[in-house]
């Protein structure tokens, strides 16, 4: 296999792997707490579900970037030149790494937000906004990853 293709594959893997791991971990942090709240008060399922789902978006962003990259080099078919391969690799980095950390940390904030749902359900919208703040940085990373991807020509 040509080294360029190898790097390109690695780029896809980084984008999907790390953001996915982060999201899974983040959702699990919030989910565990949500399950606890629901055992006490099953009516709060809806509100806790929203907070639990929030750290899941990083995984989606990573997946979208990964998928776009796959489409791009699948369209060409042939081996990928080394420089383009390294570009793919670098493209995967922002959303992969920022996605990993922001998802885990967002999971923690979402878990704290679930505490709001448990104790003061009328204020739960504020918990959602707090968790949303963390996501900003994953979004910025996604935008950069996307424009890096957009600048690669094969």
């Amino acid at each position: 296999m040509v080294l360029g293709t190898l790097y390109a594959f690695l780029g896809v893997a980084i984008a999907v792997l790390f953001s996915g791991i982060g999201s899974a971990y983040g959702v699990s942090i919030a989910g565990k707490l949500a399950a606890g709240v629901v055992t006490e008060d099953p009516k709060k399922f809806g509100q806790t579900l929203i907070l639990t789902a929030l750290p899941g978006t990083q995984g989606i962003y990573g997946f979208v970037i990964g998928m776009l990259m796959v489409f791009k080099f699948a369209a060409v078919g042939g081996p990928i030149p080394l420089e383009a391969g390294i570009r793919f690799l670098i493209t995967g980095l922002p959303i992969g790494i920022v996605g990993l950390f922001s998802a885990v940390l967002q999971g923690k904030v979402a878990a704290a937000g679930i505490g709001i749902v448990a104790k003061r359900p009328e204020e739960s919208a504020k918990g959602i906004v707090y968790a949303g703040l963390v996501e900003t940085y994953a979004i910025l990373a996604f935008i950069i990853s996307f424009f890096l991807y957009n600048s690669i020509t094969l």
Partner: protein
Amino acid sequence: MAIVPMKRLELYGLKRHKASYLAELQRLGLVELIKPAAEERWTTESGEAIGRELHHIDERLAEINRVLAVFERFAPQRPSFVEQFAGIKTVLTWEEQQNYLARQEEAVSLTDRVFNAEKEHTWLEQEKLRVEREIASLQPWAGLDLPAEDWKGSKRVALLLGSFDRDPRLLTEALASEQIAYYFRQIGADDHRQYYIFFCLRESPAEEVLRAKGFLPARPELTTGAVGERLAVLTAKKQELAASLAQIEDKLKTLAEERPLFQTLYDFWYNQRLQVEAKNQLLTGKAVFGLEGWVPAAQCTRVEQVITSLGLPHYIRFIDPQTEEEIPILLENKKVVTPFEKLVEAFSLPRQDEVDPSAAIAPFFFLCYGMALGDAGYGLVLSLICVVLMAKLTMGPGGRKMAWLFFASGLGAVFFGLLTSSIFGYSLYPGFFNVIEKPQLLLIVALGLGLVQLYTGTVISAWISIKNGDWAEAVLGKGVWLLFLTGLLLTAGGSQLGLEAYAQPTKYVTALTAGLLVIGNARGKKGFWAKLKAVPGGLLNIYGSVGFFSDVLSYSRLMALGLSGAVMGSIINLFAEMTWGAPVGWIFSIIIFLFGHGLNFGLNILGAYVHSSRLQYLEFFNTFFTGGGRPFAPLKLEQINIFLKKEREV
């Protein structure tokens, strides 16, 4: 944008009519009572009387709650999927509610019947448990057909009853080695032990020998008759008990059909409690009481009419609030804007000296949500869900506002999706531009929207200054600030817009406005030194433009959300198309399409809501709004368990 103006109500009447006035005010639901200051409380009515009344009501509430708990135990309500989110409420018409309230007396006897039935149920259950325990203890002895009277044995032969947990040969060998004559039979067994009967001569030391080997002498707990007979009696009794239990459960289930009656009564007493609690907020003298409260100014005449129509002696007046008083906040807007009040309420209500930002938020939230969701198909589904929910569910005003908010937001997505030709990820016609093909343009649109919104915010803040009479701040502060920002933008991006010819003048104007900003900061400062000291602060103002533009950049999230949703949608469509060709692939294709778009839809409506509201709260509110108002909380009829289909005209 409007905060409802309030007036202060003062009402005086005879003390003995107090309850009638309170009941009427509660029914109206337009007056928030003001707790009198401590030094004003020339009250003669002891708190004790109110306490006693409250205690009485609490007892009633506790009793009704117990009845409802019994109903819930024997005839649990099963919430539907939607009700899991929204909670279960019993819907009644006003007539039905009145009918239930008329049955107060009957409810007392019903309560007794429910409690008696529950008591009987508990007793029967215990009895059944006791019988079952006895059956369990007799079961291993079932094979013993010798009646209890004969267990003492005959003159020469003794009976040994007991259990052993190992091979019985250990016992028989021991007896044989001691040369004791014996006969034995296994009677039964449970999980761990076998049960035996031994016949031996009375003078032989059989019992000691058996004991030494680990045989445990025991007898069934029975004084007359055979074990089998007793078991038959017990089994019959158990069946009888089970039948009566089922009967009582049926009875309770039938009684549970009266649940709405008790729910109505619960709400009735709950509201009664609020009314009694309100007495604490009255001024009471020997014969007269006084009451103060906030009333929306537009409702004053209605309150006066209703109070007058009671036909009781009274004195009522409405006065304008003093400036230092904290007035409760109620928002009122045009119908289109009303749903967006929900967003303001979720953040914080405006203080009385602020403006209600609902109307300013409405168009921007609509556009932000539309961009972030960005698909006409998703938007349509969201709006339809809201319509169906509103038609099927009975919702309180809060829930209804929320549903309308999402209905409007869904339409925003329909609007933007049609512009960019995106329907469930498909582009059926050449739209304005394609999101995936021209992401740069999408980014520019997002940032442009941000710029427009933040400019609007600054203009609003200038308008507030003007309203407060601070023209200098509006012109020199906000006006120059906007000019400066525009200047910066044109200096940086003017060449893109074909304004190279004006590059020099733009620079000068920008520099001039920057200077004005610095000087503007010194405005109002007395003395040369104070003015000089204000200069660094003015420079900081210029630095504030960095904050402004980073706020604008924050709107890039709309592009990211719209783009990731669109790419995700097209990936799902691609997968669905790929499976279509295979044999029976169409089934998988449909499943992939529905499941994929369902997931993408769920995550995107959530993300769009979170980020669109964040843009309002952090970026937009930053320009003119702080909040911190206290919501208007009138004395009114609360609906805890029941929900009235149509409010009676009051």
